[in-house]
């Protein structure tokens, strides 16, 4: 079955005075219909740039350099997201493709009532006022909010409620794909857990596909079906949640899993060093400066993301056939 969203060779960067600094390099990623795919990585690894690029919300100095993104809907329609003119893109947004932004605390306009902010888009997408209102109420009920919240202003709501309003707004047109960028970061763990449960329930109810961007392995473990581990603008490993948590392949994933506190008095092992910033990504494998298993070719050659069986993909020279046979 073809993927709902097929990303190929996506490269995006920051426009400087003279040159463009690559932030996300040659990302290939398939998002399957109906799944929740988590993208994890440290701060500054390019996950938010990836999310903004998918939504085509990059703002100068961010620039999209190359790549393609194909959205294949169940009804057979196919869209090349990067070639779409603005007007068509506007039609696609919210109806097919929604976005739950990072910093949801400030994502609602403080001077407009919730009702206006939920319905204005629906009305612009061709719904009548009554229908828009009815859908907004239904969406609020999906996230366990009362309809009378529609009369409130954002500052009258708590952080968790605001986040729920945003989720409700994002699902009100039953989009095929929801891109959620750090949606629980500003919330306490209890609220975080509830919201993730609600999101999973929404996926089951609407049959939506969710791409969730986070730095929190706990979030991924709780909600995602598959995980893409990002490091320094590239995907290091892609696999099922169980696969990556039980037997991570890429040394970076191993480091990430090793740094999660566990029961039983295990010592938490952090990764030595710091993630490189886009201005000084190392040549070859970008992880080689911190990798405990570094070999010569890591310094010279960029590893490709290759299938390793069981639906796991890793971009690491250690798992390339000729290296494995030498060992």
């Amino acid at each position, binding site marked *: 079955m073809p993927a709902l969203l097929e990303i190929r060779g996506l490269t995006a960067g920051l426009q400087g005075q003279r040159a463009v600094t690559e932030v996300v390099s040659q990302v290939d990623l398939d998002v399957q219909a109906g799944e929740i795919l988590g993208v994890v990585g440290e701060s500054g690894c390019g996950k938010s740039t990836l999310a903004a690029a998918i*939504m085509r*919300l990059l*703002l*100068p100095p961010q620039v999209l350099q190359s790549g393609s993104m194909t959205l294949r809907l169940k009804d057979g329609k196919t869209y090349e997201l990067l070639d779409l003119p603005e007007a068509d*893109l*506007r*039609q*696609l*947004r*919210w*109806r097919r493709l*929604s*976005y739950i*932004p*990072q*910093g*949801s*605390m*400030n*994502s*609602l*306009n*403080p*001077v*407009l009532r919730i009702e*206006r902010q939920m319905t*204005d*888009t629906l009305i*612009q*997408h061709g719904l009548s006022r009554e229908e828009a209102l009815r859908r907004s109420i239904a969406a609020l009920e999906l996230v366990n909010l009362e309809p*009378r919240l529609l*009369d409130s*202003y954002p*500052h009258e709501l708590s952080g968790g409620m605001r986040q729920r309003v*945003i989720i409700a*707004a994002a699902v009100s047109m039953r989009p095929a794909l929801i891109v959620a960028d750090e949606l629980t970061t500003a919330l306490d763990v209890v609220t975080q857990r509830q919201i993730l449960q609600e999101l999973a329930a929404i996926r089951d109810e609407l049959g939506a596909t969710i791409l969730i961007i986070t730095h929190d392995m706990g979030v991924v473990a709780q909600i995602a079906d598959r995980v893409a581990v990002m490091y320094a603008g590239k995907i290091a490993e892609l696999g099922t949640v169980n696969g990556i948590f039980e037997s991570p392949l890429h040394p970076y994933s191993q480091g990430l899993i090793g740094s999660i506190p566990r029961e039983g008095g295990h010592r938490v092992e952090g990764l030595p060093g710091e993630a490189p910033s886009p201005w000084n990504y190392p040549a070859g494998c970008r992880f080689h400066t911190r990798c405990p298993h570094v070999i010569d070719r890591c310094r010279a050659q960029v590893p490709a993301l290759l299938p390793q069986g069981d639906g796991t993909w890793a971009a690491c020279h250690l798992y390339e056939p000729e290296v494995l046979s030498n060992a």
Partner: protein
Amino acid sequence: MTANAEARAGASAAEGQDAERREVFQYALRRFGVYLFTLWAAITVAFFIFRLVPGDPMNILLGNLARAEGRQRDAEEEEALIAHFRQIFGMDEPLPNQYVNYLRKAILGGLDLGPSFVEYPTQTKDLVFRRMPWTIGIFTTSVLLAWIVGTGLGALIGWLQRSRLSKLAVVISTLLQITPVYLVALGLIIYVGYTWRILPAGGPYARHLQPEWTWEFISSLLTHAILPMLSNMIVIGAGFTLGMRALMISVLGEDYLTFARAKGLSPFTVLKDYAFRNALIPQVTALAIIVGATLNGTFIIEVLFQLPGLGTLFVQAMGLRDFNTMQAVVLFSIFAVLTLTLIVDLALPLLDPRVRRTA
């Protein structure tokens, strides 16, 4: 929902509305208290500060009288005259008594601010009322027009911040904003008024006309008003443009703007409901602040364009140390500025729901 629960929800909604109305009322009341206090403080400061200006009005008055009559009086006669005038102007008592009398007459005596020296025995109140329409007309109209034009222009160049035309507009506005208003006025008088002779550049209306409701008089009045208003508008408008541009740019970086675009709203809706509406709130406050800061510029313009407004009256009164008139001009200017500020402040809760709670 049961009927009972529904009724309860309705009742609580009504209660919420009542609470909101009460809060708005309290805000207005508090704001009005501040208004009265400021007015009183301003009158008091004006009363004492003018009496610190060196020069006794009586000596100036006698000097003028002597020049007009062409003869010197002897000391005894002078003493008698001064005593007489002091009594007329209420200056024969100690300063604190004068202050109390002044306040008492002003508040209880129906704005009785005493006679003017400038045009004795005309009441200061009448003098100010006669001159005020000129100042209010020029000032209010030019500030409001400057605000409307500046806000629109600033929003536009902020929205199109990366275009070349926007950058040029910023340079031009910055240059205009730092130019003193009298230089702009002088430039307009010299070039537009005298060198090119496009518009009249002096006086309130053509010399041969009398104030009456005829088309000839009104059109003369309006053409004479263009240059003074333009001087004020150019400088203030440039400031408003730059202010609004900065506000727009900071709003454009807000998360809710990204979200609005992600929702698939049309650029016009994003501009109107999310960017402009939010940037407008501080811009309205800026109007209130600028109103106070630019009235003195209008006074200078009146003098330069020979308009019979409060500015020219003030300059005349200054020459005679006419305390009554100076105080009256200050009193009415402050009254006008504070009233405009009050209106703006009371309008804010309509624009910004957050002010209703926190103010």
